[in-house]
């Protein structure tokens, strides 16, 4: 780990001023990812600007019937907040499937959006990695790529986004509130994270001197028919090989609205409007679910060690949609999959 300066930000304006003044500075909130990356010599910021004391820790109802989550709300506070448990249980479930209680206590909402990939080569500083060192090459494409992406990959990068929370936020169509030197703006969740293309070093569309201030949930939380199913190598404290957030609304026996987002398969939480549209107007049966899964995975591409993810994702989508339709969401404490 390199030596670095440490400073506290007094308010959001001060935080933006400080980050603009030092191009190699980084914000730190919970530090659950950044500190690891610094210890492993992947990140070497000259200065850490501590934003953990900024007043962004509230969860409030909005005038539009939604909820605004402050960027510094810890993941565990968010998951156990009554508004979230009752109206956005898909989000609560996704959060509780991730990391450990200790990490969730430290990790912030904004930081969760900005966590970096867990691709082995990103962390292994003696190997080429276009995300870590642009232009150096991708070691994963021809390397050990069991955990890597099957959708939206590029020749430059096949890393995945590691978050569970973001998969639910994508399904719920959250909006990310950011503030920068030019003022504040909102970014639709699907536009927040990027596909790797030929600039895999950029994970998000957050501009260099912008800070996330909050995440807004729309009024509809799909709180009746939802499920978050996470498939991983061990049942706890592991990243998803494939995860699925599913949410349905019914008109009698017919699907009126559908949301489907996948984690562990791409450089961003993966949503496919065509697959969702294909479910609308259908009855909730295996055929409809399987057709939607095939549609979502139509361009999936496996590499030497991760082709199994395509079949796994197909079955996980069918299973999660079934759980949502039956209103028997996957339990994150009793982990038996039904």
């Amino acid at each position, binding site marked *: *780990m*390199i*030596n670095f300066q440490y400073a506290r930000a007094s308010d959001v304006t001060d935080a933006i001023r400080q980050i603009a003044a030092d191009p190699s500075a980084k914000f730190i909130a919970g530090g659950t990812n950044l500190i690891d990356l610094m210890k492993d*010599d992947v990140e070497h910021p000259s200065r850490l600007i501590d934003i953990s004391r900024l007043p962004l820790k509230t969860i409030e109802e909005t005038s539009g019937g939604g909820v605004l989550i402050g960027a510094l709300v810890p993941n565990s506070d968010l998951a156990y907040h009554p508004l979230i448990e009752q109206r956005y249980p898909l989000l609560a479930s996704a959060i509780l499937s991730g990391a450990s209680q200790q990490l969730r206590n430290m990790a912030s909402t904004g930081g969760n959006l900005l966590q970096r990939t867990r691709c082995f080569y990103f962390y292994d500083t*003696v190997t080429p990695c276009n995300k870590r060192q642009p232009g150096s090459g991708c070691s994963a494409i021809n390397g050990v790529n069991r955990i890597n992406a099957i959708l939206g990959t590029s020749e430059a990068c096949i890393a995945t986004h590691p978050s569970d929370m973001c998969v639910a936020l994508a399904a719920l169509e959250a909006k990310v509130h950011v503030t920068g030197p030019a003022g504040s703006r909102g970014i639709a969740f699907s536009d927040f994270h990027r596909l790797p293309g030929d600039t895999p070093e950029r994970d998000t569309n957050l501009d260099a001197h912008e800070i996330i201030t909050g995440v807004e949930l729309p009024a509809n939380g799909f709180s009746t028919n939802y499920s978050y199913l996470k498939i991983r190598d061990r049942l706890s404290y592991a990243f998803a090989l494939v995860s699925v957030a599913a949410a349905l609304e019914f008109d009698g026996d017919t699907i009126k609205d559908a949301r489907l987002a996948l984690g562990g398969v791409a450089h961003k939480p993966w949503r496919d409007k065509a697959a969702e549209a294909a479910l609308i107007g259908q009855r909730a049966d295996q055929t409809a679910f399987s057709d939607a899964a095939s549609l979502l995975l139509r361009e999936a591409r496996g590499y030497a060690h991760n082709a199994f993810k395509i079949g796994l994702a197909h079955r996980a989508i069918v299973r999660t949609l079934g759980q949502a339709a039956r209103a028997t969401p996957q339990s994150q404490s009793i982990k038996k999959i039904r």
Partner: protein
Amino acid sequence: MTAYIGTATSRVEGRAKVTGEAKYAGEFNVSGLAHGHVVESTVAKGRITRIDTSAALRVGGVIDVLTHQHRPQMADTDESYKDDAAPETGSPYRPLYDERIMFSGQPVALVLAEDWETARFAASLVRVEYQSAPHVTDLHAQREKAFVVEKPEKPRGSAEKALAAAEVRHEAEYFIPTEHHNPMELFASTVTWDGGGKLTVYDKTQGVQNVQRYLCGVFNMRPEDVRVMSPFMGGGFGSGLRPQYQVVLAALAARALQRAARVVLTRAQMYTLGYRPATIERLAIGAKANGTLNAIAHEAIAVTSQFEEFSRNDTGWADLLYKSPNTRFVHKLARLDVPTSSDMRAPGAATGVYALECAMDELAVALKVDPVQLRLQCYSDRDQTADLP
């Protein structure tokens, strides 16, 4: 004796361990202690062409950087590096000895500083250039080049003929990947410089006499000048049977600086020590339709390094477990560009019996009998090679 059964008994060292009073090898403090951090090779095979330590040496608090070009003298014969638990055949690895790289993660420099954090930071500034050579680290890629090692179990009858004539035959291959040691306690050594060239060594080891004899060999020292202590161990499981390279590096540092020195490996560096070898196990079992076994053939191909031949007994277990008039056992080793494999909990048996029992289960399926019934029927009361109970 009966009084103890069912009665909770505290371990004699239990209180010391839970209160932190128990001192482990990396926890003995003396004044003037130098802290070492290992710089590892980033290639698996080749040779070092250049080491630039200048940036590391400029860091405040750095005392020295030891390399194969800059270190106290070490012995130059294989015999001097052969510890009590070393494989019979081979040329033991010599830490920081010369420019040759034989495995990824091999120590190539030791940064010594006044505190561990400084040593770790300075280690990231050491620049090493290599001329790398093609390497092989995949057992499957090397299996055709595996060679047979002699084991005590001899063939009985003719397994080939019996298999060919078997009414029911089950053949299968099982793969056990490499299993690395990761006990709670990291490998660590603290070496104090006691004056007159004498050393006291606090080492994480399962054999203090082994370490003492080994260090005497490596540094050409007299036994009365090397005292090795290992009062507590945070998990051995076989990983501490052979002296590991950090004890050589810590002793090297103490001799170079003529002051106390400590080397603690990182968790990642624990993967550069001995490990349970990846093994391919091939089983062929022939049986009569009534479940009586006629033949068992068991072949194992296990990993060793390019420089030593480590093997345990994977294949002979069928002789002890199941009655069969015809048997054949073959144990092979494949050389990879990795550290030498080593003992880990039930070496040989854990891998060999796993494969044998999988094959018996699958044979039971082929015979359409209960797998427990099959074992009761085939169970042997005697070691069939040694003819002992």
